[in-house]
């Protein structure tokens, strides 16, 4: 299996990648580790294979995650993606994944009262993803973005790729979610135990993820 990270821009640095890599490697040394990055001066652990960002189109921030679904992305097979603000506190590979589907995080903790259709809000996120490159739907995420003539419109319309994936009429039967006991939301599920902890973006940066890791 391939484990993929994305580090583009200045929000994260190689230490974030290395920290996450080491915590995953402890449970899965047999997997292949990759980082898609625009950084040229990088000091990743040796076992992480660097994938340079596509020259075109130039994308900003989280939109770079879409490149993973391009048929030109040089990693094939079964893939597991983790955002860099993810904390691993148990075996993250002991999870059942339906590889015929595109698997995302179900934000079941998100209050329905804050969901606004006019904001194209969603009840899942892409902080952790699993997919097989042989899937029929996955290349469509990138192809539709690039070839529909609406790339620029999508960038204006949607705050990030989660909303793009939800609202661009891909066949939702091809989507699946990780089990609820696999992931804990640090913000919304304070007393839950799960091997993987995700942080809402607004929290991350104001908290010391290494200090939290040491409590496990």
């Amino acid at each position, binding site marked *: 299996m391939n484990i993929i990270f994305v580090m583009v821009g200045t929000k994260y640095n190689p230490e974030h990648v290395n920290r996450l890599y080491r915590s995953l490697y402890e449970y899965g040394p047999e997997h292949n580790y990759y980082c898609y990055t625009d950084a040229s001066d990088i000091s990743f652990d040796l076992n992480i294979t660097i994938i340079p960002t596509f*020259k*075109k*189109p*130039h*994308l*900003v*921030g989280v*939109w770079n995650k879409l490149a993973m679904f391009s048929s030109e992305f040089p990693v094939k097979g079964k893939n597991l993606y983790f955002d860099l603000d993810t904390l691993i506190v148990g075996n993250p590979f002991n999870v059942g994944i339906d590889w015929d589907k595109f698997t995302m995080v179900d934000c079941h903790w998100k209050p329905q009262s804050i969901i606004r259709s*006019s904001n*194209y809000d969603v009840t899942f996120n892409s902080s952790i993803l699993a997919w097989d490159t042989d899937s029929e739907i996955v290349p469509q995420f990138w192809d539709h973005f690039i070839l529909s*003539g*609406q*790339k*620029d*419109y999508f*960038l*204006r*319309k949607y705050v990030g790729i989660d909303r793009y994936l939800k609202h661009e009429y891909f066949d939702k039967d091809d989507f699946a979610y990780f089990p609820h006991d696999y992931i804990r939301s640090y913000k919304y599920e304070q007393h839950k135990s799960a091997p993987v902890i995700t942080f809402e973006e607004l929290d991350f940066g104001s908290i010391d993820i290494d200090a939290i890791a040491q409590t496990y």
Partner: protein
Amino acid sequence: MDPLILTRSLKLIEQVYDESMYGDDDLYRIKDIVHSVDSKQWTSKQWLVDTLSTLNIDPDPGVFVAGGWYGLMGFLLRQHYTKTRIDSADMDKKAKIFGKELFSGHNIDFITTDVTRSNYVYNKYGLVVSTSCEHIDREDLCEFISKKNPNAAIALQSNDYFELPSHINCSHTLEEFVSYVKPHLHQGQILFQGSLNLGDFNRFMVIGK
């Protein structure tokens, strides 16, 4: 804003809403239409037309607007160039549909094409305009400049508004913008370069040959 264009904008917004009730549910187009004719769009594009008018540029046989969005640039150019052909191109097919609604009767041809990916021939125009340089990959933009007719003038705008995800090719300064545009001008001739403060960001403009 021109009262006729305001009226048409409101009518188009109503159409988008009505369509959302029975067909294509894309209400963000409402916000997009509003943005396309807001005061900063109007000011920036009028600045381009006003500057062109001082330079005595002959646009014949026509003006090509790349990334023309819903057509405001073509409309304002039409106020100055009353006779010449004006083509407004955008890769978004909705731009043609909305542009025809907003600016009908002003003899603007709307074209759906991505000039950075297609083989659309735009070397037949005497004046090439793009006010969307911050949305176009720098490499593509340079290639686009070099493919114009060598005798044609080109007017380009960009900005330093880095905060938007769709702004993938902003420049920090006017000098930076000029520095990557100039080498691709056939005659290497800068007819105008300037900056316009729009409050929370600066608009940069280069006109050359």
